[in-house]
Structure formats: C-alpha cells, structure tokens
C-alpha cells in the first residue's frame, strides 16, 4: 500500500458515484471524487425523474433542502397515433402528500447540490478531470490515471460510476463493447414556461408535477418512447429510440423531437414555451444480459456504467443511487476485513441480487429482445387502439355490435387473430 494512497477513488459525480463518495466520506474515509465536467452535473443528462426512497436511504429528508423541481402526483401513458392519444394514467392525492414518491429534477442543479453534500462530508471533489485508465498491479486495480499532469491517483478501492459509455471498464476489458440495439439515443429539450401556465395546463397545485410517457407515432413506430415532465418553470420534453432503429430509420434525432413537438396533442401542451436547452444522452437498454462483471480485485462498477436501467418502468436514477450505496457498504465491509479482493467485493453483486435492482432486471431480462423483434407494439397497436376508441366513442346511430365487428375486421386485416393472440400472450409472459 502506497503512502499517498486514498481509501477510495470514485470516478464520476452522478447519482451512483456521488452516493458512494458521500457515504464513504461520512464514514471517515479519504475519498476522491473525479469528475470530468466543469462542475458536477455539467455533463449529466436524464429525462428527469428521481425516486424518493433510493435517495432517502442516502440522505434522509433530502427533498427539504435539495433543488428538486416538482413532486409527481400524476403519471400518464399515451399511446400515440398521428392525431390521437389513448391515455391511461394514475393520479392520487396520496402522491401529493409528504413523503413524496418521486420528483422531477434538473441534473445540473441536483448533481451539484449532491456533490456539495459529499464535499461537506469530507470527500475531495476533483472537477475538470478525465479519468483515462485504471492502474493495475499484480492483477488488481490500485488506482486511476487521470488526464492531469502527474495525475495518477492510488487507493485501496476504485468505484467506477463513469456513466453509460463506461470507457475505463471497456479499456480494461471488463466490459464488452455495447451494441447499437442495447442503447437508446434520447434527445431532450428544456422548454421554459411560466409556473402558473404549467400548473393551469397540467391541472396541478403548487409544487405538484405530471409525468407523461408517450409511445407510438412519436418514435415512428420504432422501439422507444417519448416523455413530457413538468419542472418548476419548464418542461422536460424528449424522445429516445434504440440506436439500431435510428440507423434504419434514416432520420435525425433532431427531426424526431421536432416532429413530436408539433404533434397536435403535444403542441397544445408546449404552446408559448421557449426552448432553453437541447441535450442528448444514451440510455442503457440492454438489461440483464448486458450487465458487465460488477467487480474485480480492488474495483466495483455502479450505475449506468453497469447498465443498471429498468426500461419497462423507466427506472435508472434509483438503481444508480442504490448501486452506489451498496458499493460503499461493501467497501466498508472489505476494509473491516482488511481485504479488497474480488472474493470480498463479490458481496456487492450479492447485495444487488438481494435488492430490487438485480431482481427487477432479472425479471425483465427478456424485454429488450422481445421488443426488438416486435415493432408492432410501437406501431400497429398504438394506432389500432386509437382507431378502436374512436369507433366506440363516436356516437353516430351505428349499433355497438356493428362497431365491434368493424374494429375486429380492421385489426385482423392487419394482424391475424393467431398472431394477435400470440403477441399479447408473449407480452404478458415477459412483463408479468
């Protein structure tokens, strides 16, 4: 062990890395948190939902001081056709009461605050610094080479939370290259609107927020989804499609988001808003089968770098926070045992397996492959359900029996009864 070594180096000041750095620093460890942005959050993008419980397990009652935007009181899913939306949703006064379930956040603000808490706890934040590669000795990780002059850092343990591109883990051969069907490319705009406008338009009281997920026409029938989330004085509006689908579509992501914004039903929600920021981000969608080894001698991998995203339920920030926390807990245990070998750090994987993180990812392990081969869930079915709803809800003196017959005829003309039943049987099997 070198004299100049820290107890831990954490790469990446997003939710996973900062969670680990905060908890270790709070336990009295000497921790370095390496961040390539000008400030934590400068390079960090997500749709915008942060879940309370996962964050509260790190900082109790955090929302009373953290820069959160709105607590979510309503969640909707829109199945979108070219001029209609079939909407299902859940709204509850229970979600409007403290402690809340989820919040919208803007990552540049939230991550800065969170990293500030880690610094208060004693972590050393090193911004504007790119971690270039892992330093190995005798088959174990002993540090991180940064882009700074004489920038080698050494520690008993390294926690990689470098985000979806996970370059260090790939360089070290721990992580196979991600394939185009294992990531979605999402683009997002932050569209400013006055607070009162947002609250009137989305039927919200002060501080409340809505999250709308949108599937169908907005991804041109490809595997992906769009979203509209309400912030305090802005909307986060975005759309993501599997990179492999985007390559086939021959459309630019910018075209996709522009087309979505002028959809007749979406345009009405954005009316009068002013785009203040445009961002892009890859979302790990590979699920269970794309998860790299999560540990090695002297090393653990957390968050997006470990592909911990549940795309069915659009959960990612909670998995990042929880994996960062469990990595920190495992590191503390390893120090107690005086052993940072892979054998000891395998407890991290075990803890993830016992938590919702790997249990959920295991449960939905077939989802990614299923949707790649079943585009109809993003094209034909959203269109059909809107057609069916229109037929049933337009009152025009046609008997209901005749309407049902027409609906069946339209559907089974495009997809045989057998195929239709098979699709939904498989759908039920993989998400149940």
């Amino acid at each position, binding site marked *: 062990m070198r004299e100049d070594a820290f107890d831990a180096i954490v790469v990446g000041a997003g939710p996973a890395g900062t969670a680990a750095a905060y908890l270790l620093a709070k336990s009295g460890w000497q921790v370095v948190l390496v961040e390539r942005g000008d400030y934590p959050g400068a390079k960090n993008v997500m749709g915008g939902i942060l879940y309370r419980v996962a964050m509260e397990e790190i900082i109790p009652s955090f929302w009373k001081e953290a820069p959160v935007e709105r607590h979510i009181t309503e969640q909707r899913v829109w199945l979108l056709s070219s001029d209609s939306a079939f909407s299902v949703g859940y709204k509850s006064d229970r979600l409007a009461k403290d402690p809340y379930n989820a919040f919208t956040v*803007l990552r540049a603000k939230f991550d800065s605050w969170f990293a500030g808490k880690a610094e208060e706890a004693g972590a050393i934040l090193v911004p504007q610094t790119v971690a270039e590669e892992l330093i190995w000795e005798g088959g174990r990780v002993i540090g991180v080479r940064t882009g700074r002059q004489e920038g080698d850092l050494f520690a008993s343990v390294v926690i990689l939370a470098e985000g979806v591109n996970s370059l260090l883990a790939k360089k070290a051969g721990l992580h196979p290259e991600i*394939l185009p069907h294992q990531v979605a490319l999402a683009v997002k705009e932050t569209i400013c609107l006055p607070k009162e406008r947002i609250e009137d338009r989305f039927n919200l009281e002060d501080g409340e927020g809505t999250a709308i997920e949108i599937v169908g026409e907005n991804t041109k029938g490809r595997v992906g989804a769009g979203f509209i989330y309400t912030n305090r004085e802005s909307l986060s509006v975005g759309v993501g499609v599997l990179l492999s689908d985007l390559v086939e579509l021959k459309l630019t992501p910018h075209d996709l988001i522009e087309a979505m914004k002028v959809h007749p039903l979406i345009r009405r929600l954005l009316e009068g808003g002013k785009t203040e920021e445009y961002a892009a981000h890859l979302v790990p969608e590979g699920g269970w089968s794309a998860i790299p080894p999560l540990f090695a001698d002297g090393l653990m991998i957390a968050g997006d770098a470990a592909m911990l995203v549940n795309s069915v339920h659009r959960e990612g920030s909670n998995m990042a926070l929880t994996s960062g926390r469990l990595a920190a807990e495992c590191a503390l245990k390893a120090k107690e045992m005086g052993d940072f070998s892979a054998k000891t750090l395998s407890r991290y994987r075990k803890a993830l397996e016992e938590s919702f993180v790997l249990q959920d990812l295991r449960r939905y392990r077939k989802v990614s492959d299923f949707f790649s081969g079943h585009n109809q869930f993003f094209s034909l079915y959203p269109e059909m359900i809107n057609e069916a709803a229109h037929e049933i809800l337009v009152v025009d003196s046609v008997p209901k029996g005749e309407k049902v017959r027409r609906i069946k005829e339209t559907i089974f003309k495009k997809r045989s009864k057998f195929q239709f039943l098979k699709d939904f049987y498989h759908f039920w099997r993989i998400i149940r």
Partner: protein
Amino acid sequence: MKLEDKLYLLRFKPDEKTHLKPKEEDCQRCESRPCTLFCPAQVYKWEGGKLVVSFENCLECGSCRIGCRFVSLDWRYPRGGYGVSFRFG
C-alpha cells in the same frame, strides 16, 4: 426550431484538438454513413468526398462510438474542463 439555433443555446468550451477521430479509410468505404444522420448535433457531415467533423458541437453522448458500422472511431472524452456544459441537464 433549427438545430443550429439549439446548439447556439449551449455553452461549449472547445479544445484545440478534436476528441473524435474517425479512420478516413473506413469512412471512404462506408456507403451509408449513418453517423451523418443519427448524431444529435450533426457533428459529422460528408463534404467534398470526405467526412468533416465539427467536434466543437459534440454533445458527448457516445452514439457515434457505438453506431459506427466499422467501429473505427477513436472516441474519447474532451480533456477535463473542455466540451459542453449543461445548465439544466
């Protein structure tokens, strides 16, 4: 709204050297050149028989690294303190 206007909203601190280095011989034999379409900032343009890389507009998402058909791109993050900084994220 045009892409150029959106990129204009962002704060970039471009480095002197590019952090995106496609291999020219691969680009020459690539027929579809998907990067010229899927890149969210249209960093890649085919002009005058070669790939022009406007690295200073890069949003650092990593799509080109994964989506390049020849996986031929030397892709790294801009040096510390350079590149895009999001105000909202």
